C-alpha cells in the first residue's frame, strides 16, 4: 500500500481513501509513475523511425515492454499488439474481420452468426452488433441465470455451424463470475468458430496463459492492471494476426507505399500505425513487473480472501442483495449489490462522504441490468492494495446509508 501514493491523500471531511473502484481503473504504484517520467526525461524519441541513440533506446524500452507483456500472458512477442485500450483491441478485431475480403477466414456474411453473452461489457457487445450490421451476420447471445452464471445448457443450440465468432468475458465486471473458458472454447472449436476473450477483469487478478486457455484473441487494458491510461493489449495467435487485415493505416505499419496502394509490415507492426504510446507501454511494463514481484498466485489468493470476507459480511446485511454468485467459487473480487429503498447513486453518495470510492449505475452492462430488472447496482471492486478493514469500512458505510435514508 505504501507503494501507491494516491492512497495517502485525504477525501471529503479529511477521511482517508477507501478505494473500491479498481474494476473501473486501478491505482498506480510509484514505480509505474516513475517509469513513465524516466522515459520522458531520458530516452524519449519516436520508435521504429530514428537512426539515433535516443531512438535506439526508446525502441529497446518499447520492445522490452512488449516482451514483458508476452511473458506475462504466455504469448510469443510478435503476438502482442499495443492499442490504446481493451475497447480499441476488440474494435480492432471486429474491423479487421470486416476489412478482410470475401472468402477469407475472417469475412462474415448473411447467414453467419456471432455469439456473445448476456453479461458482456458494452465494449465486447457493441463492436459485434456493429460488425453484424456491416456484414449482415446475426448476433446471438448466451443468457445468464438468476445466480449470475452463464446458462451453458444453451451452448449446443446457440453455437452451431453458422457461428464464426464466439466473444465472451473471462470475468464479469458486474457479477464477478468467472466463466468456464474451456467449455466455451470447446464449443467454438467444434464448429470452427474463432474465440475472442475479454480479459479486462482477469489478467489483472489471476495468472492468465493464452496458450493453455486455447482462445484465438484476447484483449485487456493497461489502466486496470496497475498501468498507465491510454494503453491496451490485443493478443492474437500468430497465424491469425498474419492473415488478418489491419484496421488503422499510417506510418510504421507499411511494407511499401505508392499513391495508389500500400502493403503491410508483418504483425505486430501492421496493427500499430503511427507513433505509439511509448511511455504508456513502458509504464505498463513496469506495472507487470510489479505484479510479477508480488506473484499472481499471491494476488489471486489475497483477492479470494477478500471476496470470501466481503460475501460473509454482506450476507449479514439486512435489505442488501448481492447481484451475482453468493459463494467465492469461480468468482472474482467484485461485489455488486442493491440496497432496498435506496437508489445506487444515493448509496454511492453516502459512501463517498465516508471516503469510500465505489461505482454506481449499469457498469457498461446495461442489458444485464435489464435482465435483472434493475436500473443499476452499487459495485465495490477490490485489488491488491485493499484490506479486510476496507470491507469493514464499506459495510459500515452501507449501514450508515440505510440509516441516513431511514430504511432500517
Amino acid at each position, binding site marked *: 500500500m505504501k507503494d501507491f501514493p494516491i492512497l495517502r491523500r485525504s477525501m*471529503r471531511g479529511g477521511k482517508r481513501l477507501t478505494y473500491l473502484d479498481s474494476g473501473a481503473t486501478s491505482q498506480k504504484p510509484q514505480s509505474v509513475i516513475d517509469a513513465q517520467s524516466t522515459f520522458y526525461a531520458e530516452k524519449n524519441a519516436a520508435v521504429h523511425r530514428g537512426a539515433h541513440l535516443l531512438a535506439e533506446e526508446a525502441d529497446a524500452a518499447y520492445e522490452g515492454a512488449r516482451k514483458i507483456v508476452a511473458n506475462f500472458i504466455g504469448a510469443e512477442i510478435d503476438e502482442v499488439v499495443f492499442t490504446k485500450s481493451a475497447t480499441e483491441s476488440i474494435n480492432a478485431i471486429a474491423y479487421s474481420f470486416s476489412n478482410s475480403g470475401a472468402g477469407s477466414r475472417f469475412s462474415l456474411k448473411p447467414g453467419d452468426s456471432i455469439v456473445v453473452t448476456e453479461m458482456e461489457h458494452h465494449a465486447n457487445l457493441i463492436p459485434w452488433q456493429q460488425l453484424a450490421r456491416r456484414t449482415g451476420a446475426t448476433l446471438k447471445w448466451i443468457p445468464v441465470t438468476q445466480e449470475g452464471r452463464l446458462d451453458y445448457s444453451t451452448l449446443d443450440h446457440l453455437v452451431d455451424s453458422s457461428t464464426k465468432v464466439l466473444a465472451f468475458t473471462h470475468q464479469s465486471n458486474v457479477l464477478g463470475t468467472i466463466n468456464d473458458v474451456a467449455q466455451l472454447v470447446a464449443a467454438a472449436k467444434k464448429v470452427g468458430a474463432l474465440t475472442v476473450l475479454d480479459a479486462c477483469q482477469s489478467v489483472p487478478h489471476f495468472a492468465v496463459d493464452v496458450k493453455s486457455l486455447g482462445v484465438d484473441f484476447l484483449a485487456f487494458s493497461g489502466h486496470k492492471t496497475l498501468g498507465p491510461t491510454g494503453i491496451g493489449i490485443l493478443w492474437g495467435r500468430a497465424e491469425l494476426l498474419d492473415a488478418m487485415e489491419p484496421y488503422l493505416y499510417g506510418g510504421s505499419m507499411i511494407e511499401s507505399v505508392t499513391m495508389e496502394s500500400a502493403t503491410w509490415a508483418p504483425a505486430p507492426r501492421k496493427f500499430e500505425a503511427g507513433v505509439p504510446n511509448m511511455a504508456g507501454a513502458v509504464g505498463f511494463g513496469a506495472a507487470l513487473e510489479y505484479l510479477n514481484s508480488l506473484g499472481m498466485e499471491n494476488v489471486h489468493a489475497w483477492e479470494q480472501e477478500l471476496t470470501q470476507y466481503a460475501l460473509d459480511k454482506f450476507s449479514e446485511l439486512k435489505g442488501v442483495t448481492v447481484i451475482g454468485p453468493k459463494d467465492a467459487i469461480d468468482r472474482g473480487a467484485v461485489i455488486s449489490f442493491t440496497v432496498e429503498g435506496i437508489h445506487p447513486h444515493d448509496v454511492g453518495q453516502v459512501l463517498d*462522504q465516508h471516503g469510500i470510492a465505489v461505482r454506481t*449505475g449499469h457498469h457498461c452492462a446495461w442489458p444485464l441490468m435489464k435482465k435483472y430488472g434493475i436500473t443499476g447496482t452499487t459495485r465495490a471492486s477490490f485489488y491488491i492494495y485493499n484490506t479486510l478493514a476496507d470491507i469493514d469500512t464499506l459495510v459500515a458505510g452501507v449501514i450508515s446509508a440505510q440509516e441516513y435514508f431511514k430504511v432500517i
Partner: protein
Amino acid sequence: MELDSLYQEVILDHYKHPHHKGLSAEKDVQVHHVNPSCGDEVTLNLSVDGGIVSNISWDGVGCSISQASTSIMTELVTGKSVADAYIILDNFSELMASKGTMKGNEDLLEDAVALAGVSKFPARIKCALLGWMAFKDASVQAIDGSEKP
C-alpha cells in the same frame, strides 16, 4: 455534514411522495429521456393549451435527486405559460452550474432552491436536470405541433 446540503428534507419528501407521478392519459406529446451514465429514465406526458402548461405527468426510475427534482419541476410549471416556465428553467440551470456559489431565487424556484447543494456535486447535476430537460424537449415538440395547421 456536507451530505445534508445535498439531501435537504424537502428533497427527501418529494422523493418519498413525488408529485404528478403516474402518467395521465391526457397528453399532446410524450418524451422519454435517459441518463446514459447511470441508466436513470423519465417518461413525461405534456399538454400545452394556449401557451399554458395545462397538464403534466411523469413516470420513471432514478435516484432521490432526479426523482425529487422532476417532482418539483412539475409543480413549478403546471398552470404557467411555457415562456414563464423557460425563465424558471434557465434560472434553475444557472443555479446547477453555480458550483455552490448561488442559493437560488426562492420566489421563482420555490422548492427547487433546496437543490442548490447539488451544484457542489458535479456528478449529480445531470440527475437534477433529467426531468427538466425532458420538459424542455416536450414543450418544444408541443409548440411545434400546435403551430402546424
